[in-house]
Structures are given as C-alpha cells and as structure tokens.
C-alpha cells in the first residue's frame, strides 16, 4: 500500500501509515512513549511535553509530530527520560499532590508516571501555591490543587461531550481551569457521565460518593506500570 511508510525508533524499524503521529505509530507497534496530556480519544494538544522525543536530533512531541519516511526517532534515552522525570517533578511541585490520601491514588497517571520514570522526591522545591476547591455540584467535585493543566477536561467536553464546560483562564503560573458559568461548577451543564470527568488523569476532577471503592492491590497501576497495555501489544505484533 502506498500510504505505508517506515521509520526507526530506538533502532527498531516501525511501519506506519502516512498521517499518523509518532505516538500513534509507536503505540501500534507496542512501543510506549510516556505521556500525560495525550489521550487516545482526543486531538493532540502538546502541552505537558512529557512525550518529547528526538526526531533527527531535534526535540519534538511525539503526540503532535507526524511520521515521515526514514525519520530517526530516539525515545528511551537517559537524557530524554531525565527531561520527562524533570517535567513530572515540575508538576508535582507546582500543584499540591497528596498521594497518600488522594482518592485517585493507584489510578492516577501522574503518580504512575512518576513510578515508571523512577522519580523518588522532586529535585525542585515545592511551591505550595494556593488553589481552590469547588464542591458546588451535587455529583462532582474539583480540586485545583491536583490539576496538571493537561486540558483533557477542556478538550473532552468540546470534542466528546459536545459541550463547552471548561476552559483555561489567566496565563503563566496563574493559569487555571475555569467553568462556563458566572458562579461555580453547579452553574454549568456538566454531568457526572461526561467524558470530561472520566478522562481526568489525576485527582482534580472526582465523582462524589465513589472514593476508595477499589482496595489497595487491585487498583489500576498497583501491579503493572503505566503503559503496560501498550507494551503488551508488542508481543501480539511480534506473533502477528
């Protein structure tokens, strides 16, 4: 087929379809590239920068960069993994992430990525920024302390729910997620069944009355690291 192309990633030749991003092609090949803002059902956004790879020696985000024939991609290098760890640490010190008692613990992508990248304590000092909590909605509560500004809620609401509940306001370190309401979250048309709620990777958007339902040991990332689902495809790809 003419729209098939080949490129190499970490020395492995990957077949991809023209128009795919590096991340999509690598996922299909069972090679996991760490990520936070990227989500399989959403358009690429490129904000967290965790999926930074070197493409022909230039840094690019795998979630936004399209594949091209013969390109050489580096991902699993010590330098890139240190940059990724560094970014995850930045997110940990920017927000206030209290893993030990967070309802999302064990199911949290930020926490799981920290484990996967071998992060111990952040090398940066905590900022202890003040953030709000909005518990006005009967079924949902939002804790900005745990928000990593990945825009998954913003994008899910628009792209999947056909609504426009969330959007960013402010800039720089003061940037935050706001709601389409002149009061609070209860003033929006958000629903607990919205994809925007489900797709939050961290403990920033939570469903009320559902905390700690899964015991420790059975949570999503208790026994296998983040990215295992993608890596398990590798065996399938090889067999196929």
């Amino acid at each position, binding site marked *: 087929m003419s729209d098939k192309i080949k490129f190499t990633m970490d020395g492995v030749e990957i077949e991809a379809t023209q128009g795919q991003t590096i991340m999509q092609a690598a996922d299909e090949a069972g090679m996991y590239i760490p990520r936070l803002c990227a989500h399989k059902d959403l358009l690429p956004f490129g*904000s967290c920068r965790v999926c930074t790879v070197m493409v022909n020696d230039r840094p690019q985000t795998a979630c*936004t960069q399209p594949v091209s024939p013969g390109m050489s991609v580096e991902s699993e290098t010590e330098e890139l993994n240190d940059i990724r760890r*560094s*970014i995850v640490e*930045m997110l940990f010190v920017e927000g206030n992430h209290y893993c030990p008692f967070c309802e999302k613990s064990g199911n949290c992508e930020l926490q799981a990525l920290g484990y996967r990248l071998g992060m111990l304590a952040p090398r940066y000092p905590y900022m202890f920024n003040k953030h709000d909590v909005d518990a006005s909605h009967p079924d949902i509560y939002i804790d900005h302390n745990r928000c990593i500004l990945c825009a998954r809620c913003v994008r899910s609401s628009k792209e999947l729910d056909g609504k*426009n509940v969330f959007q960013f306001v402010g*800039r*720089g370190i003061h940037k935050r997620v706001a709601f389409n309401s002149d009061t609070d979250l209860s003033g929006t048309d958000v629903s607990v069944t919205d994809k925007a709620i489900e797709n939050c990777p961290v403990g920033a958007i939570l469903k009320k009355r559902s905390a700690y339902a899964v015991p420790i040991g059975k949570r999503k990332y208790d026994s296998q690291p983040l990215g295992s689902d993608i890596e398990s495809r590798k065996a399938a790809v090889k067999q196929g």
Partner: protein
Amino acid sequence: MAENLETAVKQICRKNGNDRTRMMDIVREVQDRFGQVSSQAMNTIARAVNSHRVEVESVVSFYSFLSEEPKGKFVIRLCNDIIDKMQGVEKVAEAFREELGIDFGESTSDGKFTLEWTPCIGMCDQAPAALVNNKVVTRLSSDSAREIVKSLKQNGDEDHLMHMLGDGNNADPLVNSMVNNNIRERGPVVFADLEPGTAIHKALSMSAVEVIKDVKTARLRGRGGAGFPTGMKWEFTRAASGSDKVVICNADEGEPGTFKDRTILTEKPDLLFEGMTIAGYAIGARTGVLYLRGEYAYLRPFLERILAQRRNKNLLGMSILGKAGFDFDIRIQMGAGAYVCGEETALISSCEGLRGDPKNRPPFPAQKGYLTLPTSVNNVETFCCVARILDKGAGWFAEMGSAGSTGTKLLSISGDCTRPGVYELEFGITVSEMLEKAGAENAYAVQVGGPSGQLIGEADFHRKICYDDVATGGAVMIFNRDRNPLEIAHEFMEFFCEESCGYCTPCRVGNELLKQRLEAIIAGKGTPEDLDYLEQLGKTVAVASRCGLGQTSSNPVRTSLKNFRGEYEKLVRENSDGMQRTFDIHKALAAGEDLQGRKSVIYAD
C-alpha cells in the same frame, strides 16, 4: 445602567459583525468604553457572537490591557523594565504613589486613576516612560509625574499632557506624541526615501514568481530575530492551496529593549505598507493584517490615514495600479499587552480572537495559518527591506552586509551609553564598533537580542552582529560595571514568568523555578551545586518548551552563567554546616502559628 451596558455591548458586537474571530476588537472596545469587561458584559458578548462565556473570560484574562475588574478613567502604566529602573523609575513611582494615594495594582476610590506596572513599552531610549491610557509620556522625573497627575485632574483628559511634541511625524496631529524618534544613523535600506508606489510598480512589471526570486537572490532573512529566509517562506505560502492567502505584519515588538519598529511605523509607514503589498502580490494574497502592539495604539489613527491615502492612490484596494486581478487591502489588528503574541503562531491566535497561545506545528502558518488560510507572517523591518529590494535590485542589496546576512539591520540601543536610539547599520559590524557609535565607554555586559538573546562580556566584543555570529532582532542593552549580571538575569526571568502563556509545563513551571533559585543566590543563600541546578533546569526548559518564548526563556540565566560565571561564584559558598540555607524556619512555621494563635516556643526568634 445595566440595560445601557447590555445595549452598548450588543452594539459593539454588531459593529464587529457578531463575529467571534473579531473578539479582540470587541473586548478592547468594551474595555475602553466601560473600563472593564465585566461578568455581565462577557455573558452578553458570548450570546451575541454565539460563543461561551468562559471563552470570552479566557481571552479577557489573558491580555494585560483587559480586565474583568473595573479600571480607573486614567490607567497609568509605568514601564518597569531594567533600563527604566536604571534611569530612576522608582522615584517616579514614589511620586505617583504619593500624588494618588494608592499603590501599584490599585485604583483610587473615586474610580479616576489606576496605577500599574507594565513591561517594556518600547521607549528604552527615553526612559523612564509610561502609558497614560493610549498616550505615551517619556523622560519622567518625580516632578513630571506630579505634573501629570495634576494635569489629568484639572483637564480631565490625557491629550493635554502633550505640550512638548517629539520630532518628525510625532508632531503630526494624528500622532500628537512627545515621543522622540532618536534615529542616530540612517542607512540606505530602511531610512532612505521612496516615492510611494515605485516599488509596487516595479514588482507588478514582473511575475509573482520573479518577485520571490528577487527576494531570494537578495538573500533576505527575517528581521524579527530568527532569520528565516523570507523568499522561502513566501514560496511555501504561495505553493500552499487555499481560497485566499494572508500577509501579516508582526508589529508586536515586545522584546524588552526593542523600539526599532516604533521608528519605522512613525517615519516609514509607506515603505512598510509598500512591502506588505508586494508580499500580497508575490504569494497571491488578498488579505493583509498589521498586528500592532497595544502599547503603540497612539500610532493607530496616523497609520489608518496612511492606509486611506494609499487606497486613494490605488496602492491598495481592487486592481492595484491597474493590474487586473490584483486586489489587496490591509487592516490593523490591535494587540492588548501580551509579549508572547510576537511569536508568529500566537500572533495568529490573537488575530483570530483567541488567547495568545502558540499553535502546534506542523501545520506551519504557510500551510494553515490565519483562519486556516496559508499565511506569511513577517517582521516590520523585513517588509521595508522587500520594498527596497524591488526598488533598487537584489544585487544592490546583497552587496551590503556579510555573505549569510545581507543588507542592513536596525538596532535599538539603550542603557549605559550617551547616544541611545535607533541605528541602521550594515550587518557584520563588530560589537565594539557598535558600542563606540553609541557612546558606551565603560560597557561591562551587553544584552544582544533582548532577554531571549544573550548577555555577553568583553571577551565577545570583537564578534560580529549577524545571523551567524551574534544574532539579534534589534535590541541592544548596555550595562556598565555598576550593574550586576545576576540582577540583569533576574529582571529578565521575572519578565518571562510574567509573559509565559502557561500552555506548556517547562516554560510555565521551569521559569518560576529558575527565578526562585536565582533569587536565593542573589540573597547569598546559594551553594556551588546551585549553578549545576540552574544549568540543568535551563537546558530542560530550552529543549522541552513548546514555542520560541519558552525555548529562549532560560537564556538570561544560561548566558550570564556562561559569560559571567565569576559573578555567580562570588556569591555562592559551600554548605559546610549541612543546613539548607534557603529554608526559613520562621516562614515555614508562620501558617501553623497563625492557626494556633500563638508563637512557636522553640523557635521564638
């Protein structure tokens, strides 16, 4: 009253075609009219343009000239960039505080005055300077600050502040400004004369492809700083498929220390519009946009008149100079105080009525730019070069400068020198020669290319100003031995923290962390390990950030550390007692003490 607001806002929206892509014009007008874009106004705008309230809030909260909270009738924005500080802005600030009885970030209780700090307003050659609404006041002192407040109170408008007008077109009634051009050296490209229409006439006698070829033969590179070959950019834009194509002029020079485009916009607007029109012909565009930074709003009426004159002469409009099928016009899009909008994709976002967030690339603007149309964004000075190349010939232009950097470059020089101002010099001049022209005898450090460029010391003064050696978009700030390179770097880090759009993690968080550690070192709390910390973190920010702002935002730290390492080493010392010097026990306990309502017994003082 409420009904008035609703009616007026609806009318403003209607005037802008209820078009949400004209959001910048809508919210700017609402802000001007009511001193704020209130919650109620946001709801009204959202309904009128069929958008969402939070989308309007997103835009309003992004730009520093827009606000949800009410502002005074007179908003005084005092420039706090490093040059203004060196020229004694603090005394001016104190006079404003005393006269108005408020601090910066506050408004007087009668709703008349708001006092704010603002980053570089493009007046470093006549600092300290401030904006009073859209008017610029320069060379401020504590006395003139008091007079300004008095005059505003007495006359009730800012026009009366302009009793002394600047040189050249600054004295034109439509500019009516006390700004001085300070053009110190006029070169043959930008500051020479050109009869309007001459260069367009020559371009129209050639095919569009030949025009692009001429620009390529002249080896013209973008004057904004990145130095991308202009002809190539145009070729890509021309080749892209699209119903219409767009030429955008980036007149958002916000890099602290840059004010060269101010002089072009004041003295050579015809040359600029001539270049934009030629670009329109070359790439096959019908639409031209001049994105003018909010700080230069005082030039807008004048620029609108020049555009009208050009329409009358058929240098804009339908079938320009009788060339059937060549229709092109230019509109002015105002910015509203956001440095990041100088980044071309952020600028496009802003033109589309959005937050000034940069866009993902690819697609590049040449493929999909303004409203998804193929778009070429070029610098003010670049367009001037184009007009001159078409008039005088590519060969004539390419003979000037150096092989990789042809032509001349406008430099805006400020700081510790006797002749601050704008210089049009051939590429290839050395830093030393430039310093001599500017009358800088005791230069210790020179910031070339603004904060996103590099801070160089004497060891580099023999180097050449050009794309392949010391590159610059035009900003040159000179510092003598009384200035501390760490404090210079700190000023610039504050600037980048303030101006980061916050889209990507490394720029949003990394720059804050760099700034904090630099502060610790300046306060004498740094260790030698902190220098590695700065280097590592600076590199991560540079490599992993999403746009040009983030990729260059750690340069103040990285280049000052590289070229003035001794200054850092003087301040750091080994951590011999094993204590973390940045840790302040009293600060750490303060919140706990507050909650308990008593002081710590163990750490009593």
